[in-house]
């Protein structure tokens, strides 16, 4: 068990193993996302109230899911890197930050575009969208902090601490924004009611969520591999890799 853990911590081993998984992940995410998108765009039934604009849900909800989950991935990686001094975990954390921020941006953008036909305005201070905006700020803070340090090790430690503080805060932020919203805007249209959705609407959503998970894993691996190459560029195995290509 410990040996396995140690092995996992070796960037070289990780680079080789992840190289084998990559094609499958890429295939899975392309197939799932393309089929989910076609299904959602063309074959899922129209929503009675919102019409076709509701089809944005198939991007918006998976992106929101992963934007939030991505923050936890980042925080956990940061904690592991800090506690066990595992370099690889630091690299995963660094790799997760811009990816999470991009997904948060997608969630925000699709939410705004969805809002226009639904509410008649691009921006509404809906609880979900407001929390998403705060999450984007948290991501931006981490990215900004990670770029300010002179050494990667210190930068990773600092980001891990910030990510952990953020993680503790996120549930409080979400709850408080929810509460704030009910205070100011009693029950308007709920953006998503996934459980009460018609099964024909729900199935493509499931496919899309799965596809987004694969996509997240794919890009996280790709980013981590890049980070590995960059940090280990002085080691012989990376030099050999460079020359073999």
């Amino acid at each position, binding site marked *: 068990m410990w040996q396995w853990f140690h092995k996992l911590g070796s960037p070289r081993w990780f680079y080789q193993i992840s190289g084998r998984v990559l094609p499958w992940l890429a295939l899975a995410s392309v197939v799932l996302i393309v089929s989910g998108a076609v299904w959602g765009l063309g074959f899922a039934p129209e929503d009675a109230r919102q*019409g076709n604009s509701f089809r944005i849900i198939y991007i918006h909800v998976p992106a929101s899911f992963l934007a939030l989950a991505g923050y936890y991935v980042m925080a956990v990686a940061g904690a592991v890197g800090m506690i066990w001094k595992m370099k690889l975990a630091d690299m995963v954390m660094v790799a997760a930050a811009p990816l999470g921020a991009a997904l948060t*941006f997608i969630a925000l953008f699709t939410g705004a575009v969805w809002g226009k036909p639904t509410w008649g305005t691009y921006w509404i201070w809906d609880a979900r969208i407001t929390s998403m905006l705060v999450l984007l700020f948290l991501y931006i803070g981490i990215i900004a902090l990670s770029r300010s340090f002179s050494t990667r090790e210190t930068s990773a430690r600092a980001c891990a601490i910030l990510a952990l503080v953020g993680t503790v805060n996120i549930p409080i932020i979400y709850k408080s924004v929810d509460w704030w919203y009910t205070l100011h805007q009693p029950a308007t249209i709920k953006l998503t009611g996934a459980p009460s959705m018609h099964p024909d609407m729900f199935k493509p959503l499931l496919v899309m969520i799965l596809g987004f998970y694969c996509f997240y894993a794919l890009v996280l691996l790709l980013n981590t591999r890049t980070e590995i190459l960059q940090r280990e560029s002085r080691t012989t195995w990376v030099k050999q890799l460079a020359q073999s*290509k």
Partner: protein
Amino acid sequence: MFQFENFDAFISMGGHGPYVWGAYGLSLTIMTWLALAPLRRQRVLLATLRQRIHAQDQKGGGQ
């Protein structure tokens, strides 16, 4: 079952076309970029590394 009568209806989405296609288009563009950016960076990294090794080899050989 395809929900639209013809391709034009599919594109216009009952008037919501720009929003739906805009959201999908931008999202998929960002996602494609997310996947391709690290690949490009890896290529550049390895290329510079190769160059550096090459330069070092030549220097070593010259001496």
